[in-house]
C-alpha cells in the first residue's frame, strides 16, 4: 500500500512539474516540444512493478507444473533396453560339456576331437534365440591306458581308465547297459557322455540319463562314428530331438507364474447310450505323479479331473464300410472340439496366470461308435487322438461294447477298464511331450542313422529335462524382456499416465532376477537360472498387468488445460500486456529524455 501511494506521489510530482512546466515552456524554450522530449528522467517504478509481477508469474509456473504433475515412479528405461539388446544380440550361452569315450579304438584323440568339432559346427544351425557354448573332451580307452584330448581337461580326467569294456555292451538289454554307464560315470555329473565301442552288432542307444552309446561294427571307419556322435550331440543333447519349425522352438506351455494345470476330462457324448466313469485317482498316483515330480524344476504342475455328460462333438463323422467304423478325417479336426457343449472350465483353484492344458477322453455315442480318426494319408491314427498346441489333447476311446454290438447294457454305469486307462494315459503323456515339443516315438531318425531312445518311466529323460530347463530359461528371459520393453514403450508414449511405486519396484526386481538368471545360465547352474528366469518373467508380467495402469490410464493434458485456462488465460494476458506497454512507454520516454539531454548539451 505504501508503495503504491508512494508511487502515486512520485509520479504525480513528476507529472506535476511536467505539467507546471508545460505552459511556461513555449516562452522559456521555444524549441522544446513536449511531445518529443522531456527534461526529467522517466520513472522506473511501474516498469519494475509490472516486470516483477510478470517474473513472479513465470517463477510460479514451475511450481504449478510440479503441483499438477502426476506421480511417475522412475523406470530404468536404459537398463530395460540394454537387457533386450543383450538378449537379442549376443545370444544366451549355456555351457555344455561333452565327453566322447572311444573303447577299442586306437586313434589319436586329438584327431577325433577335431573331426567331431568340425561336424558339430557343420550341424549347428544358428539358433536366433538361444545357443550354447560347448566343450568337448575325447578319451580313447585302450584298456591299459587312456589318451585324453585336450590333455588338461578336468572332465575327461575323472574317468577311470578301463572301467568300460566292450563286453559291457554285448548284452542286448539296453536298460542294463544304461545302468552300467550310470554306475561308471555317476548319475549326477552334468556332462553328456557318449561311448563308442567296437563290437559285433551295430546299435545306437540314448539312455535315460545323460549317456548314449553306440556299438560300431568292426569294419566301419571311425570317421562315420564321429559324424554320428556329432549329430547325437547337436540334435539330441542340445536340441532335444526336435525338428526345427515343427512347433516354435521357444514355445513353452507354462503359465506366467510357472504353473501348469492339467485338466483331464472324460466326455460322455450321450449318457443315454452308456455312461463311463474312470478311476482317475489311481492313475494320478501311479502314472502322473512321477512325471509331475520330474518336471518340478521346469513347472509346478497340478492335476484335476472331471466327468462331463451330454457332450457331443461339433462335427460329423462318416461310416466307412471297409473299416466297419465311423471315420473322422483330419481336415475336420478343428471342428471336433465343441466349445458350446464341452464345459471344460478354467480352474478356480489355479487362478492367476497359470496355464491350463485340457486333456479330453471322448467316449462316442452309440450312433458314432466306433469312431476312428483318419490321418491325411488315409491311414487310421494309432493313438486315436490329436493335440492342439497351447490347448491340450483329445483321445477318442471306443467302449468295448459297441465294437461287437453284443448284449450291451445301456445307461448302466461302467468303469473304463484299468488296462485301457493306462494305455490312454500313455498316449496322454506322449501328447504332453509333444506339447513341450518332444517326439512321442522312441526312435530318432537322423541323417546319419537312427538312435534308439530309452523311454523313462517318468515321461521325460534327464537329458530332455535339461533341454527343457534351458529352453524354459531362454523363453522366460525373452518373454520378460519383451514384456519390459513393451511396458517401457507404453509408459514413454503416455506421458500423463500414473505409475505407482509398485510397478517401479517390480520392474527393478524383474531386471535383477533376469540378470541373475543370465549370470547363472552362463555359469551352468540350470536349475537356479530357470527359477530366476521364471521369477523375472512373472514380475515383469505383474508390472505390466498392474491394476493401477488400467484404472487412471490418462489424466490428460486437455483436462488440465480446461481446468486452469479460465484463470491463466485472462491473467496472463493482463500481465504480459501491462509489461509490454510499460516497456514501450519507458523506451519512448527515455528517448524523449535523451533528445532533450542532447539538445541541452548542445545548447549549453
Amino acid at each position, binding site marked *: 500500500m505504501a508503495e*503504491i501511494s508512494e*508511487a*502515486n506521489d512520485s*509520479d*504525480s510530482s513528476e*507529472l*506535476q512539474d*511536467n*505539467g507546471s512546466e*508545460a505552459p511556461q515552456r513555449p516562452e522559456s524554450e521555444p524549441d522544446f516540444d513536449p511531445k518529443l522530449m522531456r527534461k526529467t528522467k522517466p520513472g522506473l517504478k*511501474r516498469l519494475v*512493478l*509490472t516486470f516483477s*509481477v510478470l517474473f513472479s508469474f513465470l517463477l510460479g509456473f514451475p511450481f504449478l507444473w510440479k503441483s499438477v504433475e502426476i506421480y511417475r515412479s522412475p523406470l530404468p528405461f536404459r537398463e530395460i533396453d540394454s537387457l533386450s539388446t543383450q538378449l537379442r544380440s549376443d545370444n544366451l550361452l549355456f555351457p555344455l560339456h561333452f565327453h566322447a569315450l572311444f573303447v577299442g579304438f586306437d586313434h589319436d584323440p586329438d584327431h577325433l576331437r577335431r573331426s567331431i568339432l568340425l561336424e558339430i559346427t557343420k550341424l549347428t544351425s544358428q539358433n536366433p534365440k538361444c545357443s550354447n557354448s560347448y566343450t568337448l573332451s575325447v578319451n580313447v580307452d585302450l584298456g591299459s591306458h587312456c589318451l585324453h584330448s585336450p590333455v588338461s581337461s578336468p572332465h575327461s580326467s575323472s574317468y577311470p581308465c578301463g572301467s568300460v569294456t566292450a563286453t559291457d555292451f554285448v548284452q542286448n538289454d539296453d536298460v542294463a547297459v544304461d545302468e552300467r554307464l550310470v554306475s561308471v560315470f555317476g548319475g549326477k555329473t552334468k556332462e553328456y557322455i557318449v561311448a563308442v565301442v567296437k563290437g559285433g552288432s551295430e546299435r545306437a542307444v540314448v539312455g535315460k540319463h545323460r549317456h548314449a552309446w553306440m556299438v560300431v561294427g568292426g569294419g566301419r571307419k571311425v570317421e562315420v562314428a564321429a559324424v554320428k556322435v556329432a549329430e547325437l550331440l547337436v540334435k539330441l543333447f542340445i536340441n532335444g530331438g526336435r525338428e526345427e519349425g515343427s512347433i516354435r522352438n521357444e514355445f513353452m506351455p507354462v503359465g506366467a507364474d510357472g504353473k501348469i494345470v492339467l485338466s483331464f476330462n472324460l466326455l460322455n457324448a450321450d*449318457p*443315454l447310450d452308456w*455312461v463311463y*466313469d474312470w478311476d*482317475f*485317482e489311481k492313475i*494320478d498316483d501311479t502314472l502322473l505323479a512321477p512325471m509331475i515330480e520330474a518336471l518340478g524344476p521346469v513347472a509346478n504342475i*497340478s*492335476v*484335476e*479331473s*472331471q*466327468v*462331463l*455328460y*451330454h457332450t457331443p462333438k461339433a462335427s460329423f463323422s462318416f461310416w466307412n464300410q471297409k473299416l466297419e467304423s465311423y471315420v473322422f478325417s483330419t481336415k475336420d479336426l478343428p471342428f471336433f472340439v465343441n466349445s458350446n457343449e464341452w*464345459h471344460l*472350465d478354467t*480352474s*478356480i*483353484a489355479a487362478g492367476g496366470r497359470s496355464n491350463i492344458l485340457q486333456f479330453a477322453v471322448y467316449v462316442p455315442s452309440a450312433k458314432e461308435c466306433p469312431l476312428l480318426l483318419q490321418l491325411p494319408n488315409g491311414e487310421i491314427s494309432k493313438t486315436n487322438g490329436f493335440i492342439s498346441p497351447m490347448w491340450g489333447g483329445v483321445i477318442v476311446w471306443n467302449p468295448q461294447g459297441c465294437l461287437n454290438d453284443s448284449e450291451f447294457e445301456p*445307461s448302466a454305469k461302467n468303469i473304463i477298464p484299468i488296462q485301457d486307462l493306462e494305455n490312454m494315459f500313455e498316449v496322454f503323456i506322449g501328447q504332453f511331450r509333444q506339447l513341450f515339443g518332444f517326439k512321442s516315438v522312441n526312435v530318432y531318425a537322423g541323417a546319419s542313422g537312427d538312435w534308439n531312445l530309452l523311454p523313462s518311466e517318468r515321461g521325460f529323460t534327464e537329458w530332455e529335462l535339461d533341454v527343457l530347463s534351458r529352453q524354459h530359461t531362454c523363453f522366460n528371459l525373452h518373454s520378460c524382456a519383451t514384456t519390459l520393453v513393451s511396458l517401457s514403450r507404453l509408459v514413454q508414449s503416455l506421458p500423463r499416465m500414473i505409475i505407482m511405486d509398485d510397478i517401479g519396484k517390480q520392474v527393478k526386481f524383474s531386471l535383477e532376477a533376469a540378470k541373475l538368471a543370465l549370470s547363472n545360465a552362463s555359469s551352468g547352474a540350470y536349475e537356479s537360472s530357470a527359477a530366476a528366469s521364471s521369477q523375472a518373467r512373472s514380475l515383469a508380467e505383474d508390472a505390466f498387468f498392474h491394476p493401477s495402469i488400467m484404472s487412471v490410464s490418462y489424466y490428460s493434458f486437455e483436462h488440465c488445460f*480446461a*481446468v*486452469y485456462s*479460465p*484463470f*491463466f*488465460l*485472462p*491473467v496472463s494476458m*493482463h*500481465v504480459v500486456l*501491462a509489461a509490454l*506497454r*510499460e516497456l514501450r512507454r519507458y523506451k519512448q520516454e527515455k528517448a524523449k529524455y535523451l533528445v532533450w539531454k542532447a539538445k541541452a548539451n548542445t545548447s549549453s
Partner: protein
Amino acid sequence: MAFLRRPLLLLLLVTHQFLQLWIASGSVNEEGQKQEEFYEELLLKPLPDRKVLTHFHFQSSAPPSTSNGRHHHLFPKAISQLVQKFRVKEMELSFTQGRWNYESWGGFDSIPSSNAKPPGVELWAVFDVPQHLIDALWKNLTHTLSGLFCASINFLESSTSYSAPEWSFPPALGNLRYGTLPREAVCTENLTPWMKLLPCRDKAGISMLLDRPSIYRGFYHSQRLHLTSTGFSSEGMDLGIILEQTLTVVLQPNIQRASLARTSEKHIQPSWSLSSIFGKEVNGKCVLAETSNVYLLLDRSLVAELKQLHKENEKSAEIVLTSENFWTNSNFELSAKPDRIFIEESSLLSKNSSILYKFEIEKYSEFKPFDLGLTWKIPVGWMCQQAPLHASRFLMGSGNERGAIAISLISTQPSEGSMGANFDGERCELRVDVFQVVPWYVKVYFHSLQVFVDQQPKAVSDIIGTIHVSPSKDKVSPGVMELALKLPCNVSSAALTIEFDKGFLHIDEYPPDANQGFDIPSAIVSFPNFHASMVFLENDYLNKSPLLSKFQEKSPVMSYTEVLLVPLTTPDFSMPYNVITITCTVFALYFGSLLNALRRRVAEEERFLKEKAAKKTGRIPLLLSKLSAKLRGRRPEPPHPPPGSSSLVNSKLVLKVVLVAGLAVCWQYYIS
C-alpha cells in the same frame, strides 16, 4: 399357543441327526467308498390366484474325500474348488426377479420360507476361518461368484455393501457375511451358468422343462444355490459338500378358451399341464440322477375345501382323494396316474393335512413323455396358510432432507386373538425378529425408534426384548439393526418407525443413474417360534428324496419386506467445473484490475484528456453543454477546459448508460 412355548430344542436335535443320517446314507460302491450323487425333483402346486408354483430342486453331493476339489465324477468341479479355496462352510446365493406375494401365495410353508427371496441378488456365506480372515475371503468369494454367474456380485466386495448379522439372521453361526444387490437384473445369462452345474444341464431329465421364455415370462422366479460343506476338519482335507440348486417359478397357465366360454364356470381354476405352462415335456430322467420325481402338492386348506365339497355329496373325501381312482374324482382330474400318494402327518397347527402325489419319471421315455395335467371340474377357492404377521415396509416424510422408515406388521388371522387361543392368564408372547440393513447414506437415528401396537404407541423397552445395533460409518460400513420384538399374541397390528437423515455422497460415489434413487435392501422378518415343516409318512422313501427331507426340516418362518427406493439429492454433475471456471474468472478480474490500478497514471491521463478536449471540442459535447445550460437557465458557457471536464464526464456517463440500457433491452428481447 402352548406349542410356542414348548421346548423346540429336541426337535432341532432330531432334524440335525436326521440330516447327518441322510448324509451318511449315501450309496456305497463295492469298495465301501461313497459316491457322488445327484437328485432331481420337481414340485408343482396350484396357487389360489389361478397361478401355478413350480419348484425345481436339484441336489448334488460329494462325500468327504481327499480328492475333493481335484477329481470329480458328478459334482461340479468349480463349486468344490470354491469351497476349498474360500473355506466356505455354508453359502447361499439367490437371483430373484419379481416379489413373492405372501398374501395369496402363502407364507408359512417350507417353500416360501426358504425359497422366497428378495429381488435382485442375495448372498450370504459362513466361513470356517478365524474372524480376521473372513473379510478378505468374502471379497475374493464375491469376485469368483461374479465371474462364475455372470453377475455383478463383485459390488458386494466393498465394505459398505455387506454386513455381519449377529443373531437375527436364521443360520446365525457367527462368521457370517450377508449382502444384497436389490437392483441386479436377473436374466438367462445367470441361469445358464447355474444350469452348467447340473450334470445333465438342460439336455435330459426334469431340467429339460426349463424353457427360458416361459420362465422369464413368469410372475416370480428365484434361482437359488445353497451349499453346505460338512465335516470341515481343522486341516480342511476331508470335507463333503452338498449343493442344493432350486428354481422357484410362479407361472400363470394359459386359460383355455373352452373353459372361458362357459360363463357358469368363470371362477373355475385354470386347467394346466406341463406342456401348456412350459411348452415342453419330460422325455425321461437324467440317467445320472439317483431319483427323478415330480410331485404335485395340494395345500392343506385346498384339501379341506375339497373335503368340504365332498361332504355335500355323499362319500368321505379322505377315501376319494387317496383311493384307487383318486386321480379322476369329481373335483379334478390328473392326466397321469401317480405312483404314490403321501398324506401329511397331521400337524399341531391344523387338523387338515396336505396331500402329495408322486410321479416317477423313470417310467417315462422319449416315446412316452411325461406330461402332467390338472383339470378342474368344479370351482374351488381356498387360502394359503399365512405367516402369523404380514410384514410390509414403506417410507414416510417428503423432501430431500429427512424421512422415516416404517415397518408394519399386520396380523393375518381373521379374528383377533385367534393366535392366542389358549391364553390362560399368563402373558402370551409372539416373538418376531427383524433384521434390517441400511446403507450409510441413510443416516438412521436409533433413538427415534417408535413402536406402535394396535395403533397405540408403546414404550420401546416393553416390546423389544433384544436389540443389536451397529451404527453405520460413513463410507465404511452400513448400519445394521437387529430387533427381537415381543408382541402380545392377540396383536392385530404393530408398527415400527425410525427416522433418518439423507446423507450426501461424494460426486464419485453416485451411480450413473443417480436420479433414480437409492435402494434400501429388504428387511427380514422372521418368526423363530414358528417352524414350517411338512412331515410325510413312508419313511423308507424319505431317504431317497432330498426335497421331502427338506420339507421335514424345521425351518423358521421368515419373510422379506419390499425394497425401498430413497431419492437422494443429486448434485449438478458439471458443478465442479463450473465452480472452477467462475472462481478463476473472479480471480482473473481481480488480478487484472489490481494491475491496472497499479500502473495507472492519473495526472497524465487527465492532462491527455485536457489536451484532447482543447484540440477538438466535439460537437455533441458542445451541444450537450449548451442544452444543459439552457435547461439550467444559464447562458451557454464556452467550453472552458477546467469546468468542461465535468460535462464531458457527464456526457460519457450518459452514453455509457444508454449503451448498457440498449444492451439490456436487446438481451431482454432475445431472451423472451
